[in-house]
């Protein structure tokens, strides 16, 4: 079997497994909620997870179906996704989006600090904003350092 065919059948298999597992989880959640009232755990979490996994499985399934129907168009779609220029542009866009969100959150933190005038005590909003400024910078710096390791 060719590599591309193997990849297609694997994609299809993963898709089916995820869709079936998601549906089973969703039905289990609904069944527990409907027939066993008063359960301690909230089954909506199970249902939500089921929907998520189903959605996750539908994507490779739809792709494998579109490849079967029109292999040329599907190949071009895949090329558009993996195209080096498209990847470069997406990376650049992601970088500028990161900078934008960082600057926006920093401005919000400064404004919030000014409005609250540095009140003493634990302020969850201030700490959340500070976390949203510091954590991405640390992750960014860590990733740059890790990617530069060789």
């Amino acid at each position: 079997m060719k590599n591309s065919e193997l990849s297609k059948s694997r994609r299809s298999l993963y898709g089916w497994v995820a869709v079936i597992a998601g549906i089973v989880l969703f039905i289990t959640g609904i069944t527990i909620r409907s027939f066993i009232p008063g359960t301690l755990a909230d089954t909506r979490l199970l249902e939500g997870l089921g929907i998520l996994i189903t959605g996750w499985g539908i994507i490779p399934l739809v792709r494998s179906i579109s490849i079967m129907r029109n292999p040329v168009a599907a190949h071009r779609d895949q090329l558009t996704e993996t195209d080096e220029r498209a990847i470069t542009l997406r990376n650049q866009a992601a970088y500028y989006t990161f900078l934008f969100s960082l600057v926006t959150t920093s401005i919000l933190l400064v404004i919030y600090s000014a409005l609250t005038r540095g009140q003493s005590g634990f302020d969850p909003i201030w700490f959340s904003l500070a976390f949203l400024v510091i954590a991405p910078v640390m992750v960014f710096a860590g990733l740059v350092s890790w990617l530069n390791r060789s």
Partner: protein
Amino acid sequence: MKNYLEYLRTKAGLTQQDLADRVDVSRQTIISLENGRYNPSILLAFRLARLFDQPIESIFIYEEENRNEEF
């Protein structure tokens, strides 16, 4: 970076889509390359060079004054 991609492509009787399919990139990338708006990766440059049976430096012309140009 200047290049002779459009000349070589038309000489070979290929459309932009044909060329894109042959070197596994999108048509938009070929358009950007031909317009000189995008500099290819070394891998893509090699694929193009092999396809047209030309050395890389005869397809892509390196210009010193544009060395900091991106995309």
